[in-house]
């Protein structure tokens, strides 16, 4: 347990950063303990709920299952990097306007997955959306509203381009 530590360098929400981290620690801990970013959050701890979803080199991964040292040299994007803090992204706006959350604990994961989905498929069908988001769970059961939010986000993005 007195495990080894390593210094890693990576890009975090567009900025180059470095951190020293234990080899046993996961990406969620790295973001929370070293950078104070709590948008990726622990819940099931087994990669099943999607609350800790983070984009690493463009791929959506679960932060609880990714060892922190493995992001050395990677491009890491979290919910905090999705907007500049002033102007919300189309996905974030759509989630608010559709009432697509209740407690909000799972919301960052859903929004990041929505971003990824719409990057790959700007006009997804209901089935595409359900399939793509099936790895994220919402205990408040806001699925119908989330479905609407993804479609609204798609329209918002289309209007911007």
């Amino acid at each position, binding site marked *: 347990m*007195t495990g080894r530590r390593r210094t890693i360098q990576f890009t975090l929400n567009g900025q180059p950063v470095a951190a020293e981290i234990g080899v046993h620690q996961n990406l969620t801990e790295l973001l929370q303990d070293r950078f104070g970013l709590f948008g990726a959050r622990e819940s099931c701890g087994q990669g099943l*709920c999607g609350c800790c979803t983070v984009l690493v080199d463009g791929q959506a991964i679960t932060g609880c299952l990714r060892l922190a040292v493995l992001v050395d040299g990677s491009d890491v994007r979290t919910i905090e990097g999705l907007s500049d803090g002033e102007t919300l992204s189309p996905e974030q706006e759509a989630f608010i306007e559709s009432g697509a959350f209740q407690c909000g604990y799972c*919301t960052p994961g859903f929004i990041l997955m929505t971003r990824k989905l719409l990057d790959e498929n700007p006009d997804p069908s209901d089935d595409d959306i359900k399939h793509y988001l099936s790895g994220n769970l919402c205990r408040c059961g806001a699925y119908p509203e989330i479905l609407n939010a993804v479609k609204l986000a798609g329209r918002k993005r289309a209007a911007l381009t």
Partner: protein
Amino acid sequence: MADRSTTTSVGHSIARLEGRDKVTGRTDYIYNLRLPSMLHAKACRSPISHGRIRAIDTGAALAMPGVRHVVTGEDVKAVLPEPYYGPAFHDQPILALDKVRHFGEPVAVVLADDPHIAESAAQIIEVDYQELPGVYDEIEALRGQVIVHEELKPAGTFADLKHLAGRRDTNLALDYHLRHGDTDRAFAQAEHVFDHIFSTQQTMHAAFEPIVALADMRDGRLTIYSSTQSPSFVRFEIARLLGWPESHVRVKTAHLGGGFGAKVYVKAEALAMALSLIARRPVRVALTMEEQFYTITKHANTVRIRSAVDKDGRITGRKCEVWWNGGAYADIGPRVAQKSGFSAAGPYDIENVDIDSFALYTNRPPAGALRGFGIPQLVWAYESHTDIIAGELGIDPLAFRKRNILRNGRPQAVGSIVEDAEFEAVLDDVARRMNWRGPFDKGSGTLLRGRGIAIGFKASISPTTSSAIVSVQADGSCIVYCSTVDMGQGSDTAMAQIAAEVLNIALDSIKIVHPDTDVTPYDMSTLGSRSTFHMGHAVRLAAQDARGKLDAMASAAGLPEGANTPLADLFVKTFGMRAGTIVGAANYMPEYAPPNYETGQTPKVTPFWMIGAAGAEVEVDTQTGQFRITRLVNVCDAGKAINPAVVETQISGAAVMQLGFTMTENMIIEDGQLTNPSLADYKIPGFFDLPDAMENGFIEAEQHNGPFGAKGVGESGTFGVSPAIANAIADAVGVRITRLPITAEAVFRALRAKAGNPLGDA
């Protein structure tokens, strides 16, 4: 009241105040809180369900570098001589003492600066158990061959539990009895008698922000940061354990990542307090998802329900016996047995009703409140039973229900007259949305279709009090202080809407202060769909109190009545500059009359009734038992909605949650061990578990004594879901499922049994 043409805030679908924080990942959950010099706690938990603790060897754990303390039940007892807590019984030790009573019970805790070290050390604590036989079934528990608690210790807060003090050799933690009319005579004179048994399984909340508490004890004062739904109760109970004045304990919360009843009363707070007392440092007790399975769950139960029916299809008598599987510690289970138990005969106008409801200890993880407080388990029984009766009498299920439904002005079996309860309108709306009277495709070949309806109801918990403070600042803005916890249900927004409406100011001029017992006034708890009604009233009255003072200020300043001077100008006129604060305050407690112990009768059982109904259409594959819910309709009585959009998401979310409890969720205990404490094996609903079509709605009817005509609605969407689905399956393929969850295997076994070719045991 909330006529939308005349209100500016109340009655409008305003987006949640905290929306930006939630979509940017910046919401302040307690799980994210870190305190300076904090220690992390990790528990060593019992691997058996029932046994005596012979010895605990903490040596190896204590020797691990980085470990600060290893704490056992005896260590807790050394600093807190009576370390037992609970809202109904003082039966739950902070850490196990002498005995363990359920799988996963905390036995010892490691404290370390690094949570990984604490976790590793907790795994090498050696506990020597003498295993005892366990009891897991509520009916077996009643027979009393295995006794979970040697002696019962009621908390004394509830008058109807006092007679249980000191009772030995029983697992019965409450017996509730209702007697209404002459049931034996009704059965003797009945044209038809029906007798069925139904049961439900143990499930759990799985709030995504796991239960967490941080305790910071210093200089004879304690601050607790907790994901609690009950800050006022936590302060009361923690002060009682310490033998301190309540004022020396402060409890703070933030937004909760879901609650659903898991976070009511004391959960991790007592342990965090004891550990901070011992370590003299702040301590964080943060459960994992797995540990939540061992902490609090939803009751399994068994219901025997019998009905007497006359030749016209009127239910003339009903007898219900309900056995609640409360697990190893009572938590609020005895209240489930009583407060929900009285409604076990359903929302029907039945002259003669007997109910016997029993809360039982078993060696399962403790059961308490979960979205509905026992009601969904009762609706499962009475709406399945009601459907069977309609079927056997050859009466349409909707017509049979309407023939017997309770109507306003009539007494419910508990003896209270029903008011502002739109049973029939809710049923009719489900039927309309289902096109019930229209043609229905029953399918063909091996794919058969069916549909079903169900309706349930609930009384709000009584008697309870809410208090609120509203302060109006010199700039004309307003701060609302209340101890209602926003766990996702949108209470912050609703309270702001009410304050804004009364004070006639813009919603963005309102701030809501989150519960902090040093700052926000008393509230019974955020549970039982009570906040909109009770705290809504308190905020409304506090705002009116402030409004009255502002009006007096205006009058003193010589302003004509109705001048509508901006508040900021009014403060300047009064104080000569932008200065001063106006404070309004109010307590709210509705009328209530306690039930008679022998008969359970009371003239005033609740300030308002909650009603939820569902309609389901299913398609069943007769070759496999697999079935799809092709359509699910949920309709509730919402009073006058304070925020219609939020009400609709509450109904929808409750129905989705109940779908999980209907189809997949099931805590499985084998050989005394819980085999599936993980979201991998305990399946909560995901996108693909949704019905093909889902429709949610509500009937708006004024609740005459509600704030702006509103009533609570957070639980109502759970009521009808399970029996509506079972009734639809029965309609499709003629088999009746009597136990939850309704799995494809259960349907297939029932189909084979019906065909005279039953499957053997798995």
